[in-house]
Structure formats: structure tokens, C-alpha cells
């Protein structure tokens, strides 16, 4: 393979004039993590609301939940980001559209919200399945104790359901981290974007991508290990995964 390997490239100054190529990649990594965390918070909030809607006995509520999920699941993430970034500001009233275009860090906010809403549909499906997997007696016991619907969700159903769906939620969180890389298309220079930038500046393609790959693997290992601890400490006694 006639390729010019140069692993010292990471310690050479990058063309922005501030620090080395490694600093460039680390700043990308930080941006990936920030975007993913904000997106995950959004996904959990909206996913919980929609997941609960889907599990309610009311026909209207579950229909709204169904439409929400279908809307966000049947379009590629890339197209959704384009809709938020390019299309929405044009369709709003002039003043609001102008405001949206002038927000500093627009790619960051668009990416976090876009990825967050995209993932919220997946969280909603998992949560609805988690609630459906609970024995009917739990809801009935909550009602018999005099809890309102809101209270029975707050104190009985949701705490159980979230603990049951923790393993699939872990992989959805990992998907959120990976999906932030799609925001490269709206100009968010996160980890993949910085690797690409490094490749363009230095021509060391494979070193740049290897470093990004190693960083993604490291994030994965950290998240998986952390979640395993969380799963163990939150396991429901009496269930297969519990003590």
C-alpha cells in the first residue's frame, strides 16, 4: 500500500493557528458529546410525553401519539435536519424566520433539536412497549389505592417501565451520539467533521479517520460500562434481570 503514513501529524500545529491537529479532533469530540447530551434530554422529554399518550386508553391520545411517531420515523434524519434548517425559517412569518437565521450557533441548536425529536419517536415506542409489558394488575392496584391517572403514571407505571426498558434505551442513547454526525451536512463541525477537516488540511486521511474511530469506540465503551452499572443498581427485584 503506497500511502504515506505519518502518525506525528497529530502533534503538528493545525492551520487555524490554535493548537495541534489533536486539539482540533478533541474539540470535535466535545461538540459531539454536547450535541448528543442536549439531543438526548429532548428525546427523553418528548419521548416520555408521546409514549404515555400512546399508552392511554383514550383513542384520540393514542392516535396523536401514533401520528407523531410515524411522522418522525418515516423520514431520513438528514431530510428532517434540512427541513428544520433550510425550510422552517422560510415558512415562518418574516420576523421569526429572520430571527431563526440569525441565531448564533444555529447548526448546533438545529442538530440538537432535530436529532432529539428524531430520537424521541424511538424512545416513545420503547416506553409504550415498556408500559404495555407491565401486568394489568399494577394499573388496577394503583386505581384501587385511589391514585388519579396522573399519579399512577408518576408513582407506579413510569418508574417500573423505565427500569424495564433501560437496556434498549442504552442503545438508543448510543444511536443519538452516532446520529449527531449527520449534522455535518448542516455545517456542524463535530468529531466526524473535524476528522474530515483534518484530512482536507493535512492529506493524512487514514490517520484522521483512525483517530475519530478510536474516539467513537471509547465513547461507546464508556457509555456501555456506565449503563451496565446503572442497570444493575436499578434492576427490579423479582424480575429476571433483578436480584
Amino acid at each position, binding site marked *: *500500500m503506497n500511502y504515506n503514513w505519518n502518525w506525528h501529524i497529530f502533534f503538528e500545529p493545525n492551520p487555524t493557528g490554535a493548537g495541534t491537529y489533536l486539539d482540533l479532533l478533541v474539540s470535535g469530540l466535545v461538540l459531539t458529546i454536547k450535541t448528543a447530551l442536549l439531543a438526548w434530554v429532548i428525546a427523553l422529554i418528548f419521548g416520555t410525553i408521546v409514549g404515555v399518550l400512546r399508552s392511554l386508553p383514550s383513542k384520540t391520545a393514542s392516535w396523536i401519539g401514533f401520528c407523531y411517531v410515524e411522522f418522525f420515523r418515516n423520514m*431520513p434524519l438528514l431530510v428532517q435536519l434540512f*427541513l428544520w434548517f433550510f*425550510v422552517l425559517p422560510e*415558512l415562518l412569518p418574516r420576523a421569526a424566520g429572520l430571527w431563526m437565521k440569525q441565531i448564533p450557533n444555529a447548526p448546533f441548536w438545529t442538530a440538537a433539536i432535530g436529532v432529539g425529536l428524531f430520537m424521541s419517536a424511538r424512545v416513545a415506542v420503547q416506553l409504550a412497549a415498556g408500559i404495555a409489558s407491565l401486568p394489568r394488575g399494577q394499573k388496577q392496584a394503583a386505581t384501587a389505592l385511589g391514585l388519579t391517572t396522573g399519579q399512577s403514571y408518576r408513582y407506579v407505571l413510569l418508574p417500573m417501565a423505565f427500569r424495564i426498558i433501560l437496556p434498549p434505551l442504552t442503545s438508543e442513547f448510543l444511536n443519538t451520539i452516532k446520529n*449527531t454526525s449527520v449534522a455535518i451536512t448542516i455545517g456542524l463541525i463535530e468529531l466526524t467533521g473535524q476528522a474530515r477537516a483534518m484530512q482536507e488540511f493535512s492529506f493524512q486521511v487514514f490517520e484522521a*479517520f483512525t483517530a475519530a474511530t478510536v474516539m467513537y469506540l471509547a465513547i461507546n465503551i464508556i457509555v456501555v460500562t456506565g449503563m451496565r452499572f446503572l442497570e444493575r443498581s436499578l434492576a427490579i427485584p423479582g424480575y429476571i434481570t433483578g436480584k
Partner: protein
Amino acid sequence: MFANLDFDVIRRSLPYLFLDGMTFTLMLTGLAALGGLVFGTLIALMRLSSYRVLGRIAGLYVDFMRSLPLVLVIFWFYFLVPYIGQWVTGASRPIRVGAFTSTLVTFVMFEAAYFSEIMRAGIQSISKGQPAAASALGLTYAQSMRYIVLPQAFRNMLPILLTQTIVLFQDTSLVYVLSIPDFLGAASKVAQRDGRLVEMYLFAAAVYFVISCVASYGVRRLQARIAIVR
């Protein structure tokens, strides 16, 4: 709010969007799904084989691919495939590879990791008595896989395999990062040429939405029809 939009631009670019763009997208989806299924099944068989080393290699490959974002994998293969081609053909310099070949290799390798997990679950869902009965009848390992286990595993997993193919169909839009005119890429080219971003992106979103909705409705119907009553 739709006052100064020109939806005629869509009508004018329909032949380019569908004959060029959508054909590329569907070809890529179909071939990548087939290739992914074949390689995925092989990886699943490796993972379940009694040779520990094979299982470890397959497991590492799957975990590795599944922890990387697709965009990064697309970039990796875009730069790597010419070198792989040089190595395979023994040429003196990295060979020139077309956009379609490069993305097809990417998606086959990437999807194989996901399809292998589905096929592994499918193979494990077959009760132990079946391969045992097969070997009692004198069938070799290959024969029992070919005639007994894999057909049933494939049938059990068909809805999930098709759902994964719908995800793949949506994911092919990511070849946009290489400026390849798939359906979204074609829409984006027209959008930027004519300054009609709103119309083109809304139309592209609607087309993806309708195709995915119809396809997943079809999968649900199929699932109800082929479910084996046990």
C-alpha cells in the same frame, strides 16, 4: 406563507429526480440489502460456530461496525476502497472506483453487521431438536443449515429484515455527504441551482415519507399473513 413558492420547479425536474436519483437510491437499497443479507448470514453462522476464534472475530466485527456512525464509515470506505481495489487486483496504484461501487461496498459491509444480528436471533429461535433431527437423518452441517435451519430462520425474521431494509432505504440518503446524486442529492442539486430549497426539500421529505409509510404498512400486513400458528 406559500405565496412566493414555485411548485412548478418540481414538475420540471421530475424526470431527473426519479429516473436518475430514485433509481440510484433504489438500486443501492436493493443491492445493499441483498449483499448485507448474504454477508450477515455468514457472519451470524461464524458467530454461532463451535470454533471460538471465528465467533470472536465475527463478534468484534459486529460490535466495531455498530459503534461507528454511518457517516464516518461512508468517508472511510470512500477513501479506502481504491486501496482495497489496488490490493485485490495487484495494480501499481490505487484504482479509480465509481461512486456507486464505493457506496455499495460501504453499505454492504455496514448493513452486514446489522443483518447478522437479526439472522443470529432467527437461527437461535429454531428449536434445538431441528438440527439434532437433521444430523440424526445423516445431513451434514451445511445441508442442515441449507435445508432446515436457514429457511425457517429467514421466514421468522422476514418482517424484521424488511423493516431494517426500510431503515437502510432512509440511510442511503447519507451518501449526500459525498455529493452523489441519489434522490436527495438530486433534489438538493436542483434546489441549489434554482434557489428553490423550500419546495424541493418539502417534496423530497414527502416522497420519503410516503414510500416508507407504504412499505412499513406492507410489512405489517405481511407479518400478519405469514405468522406461523404454533
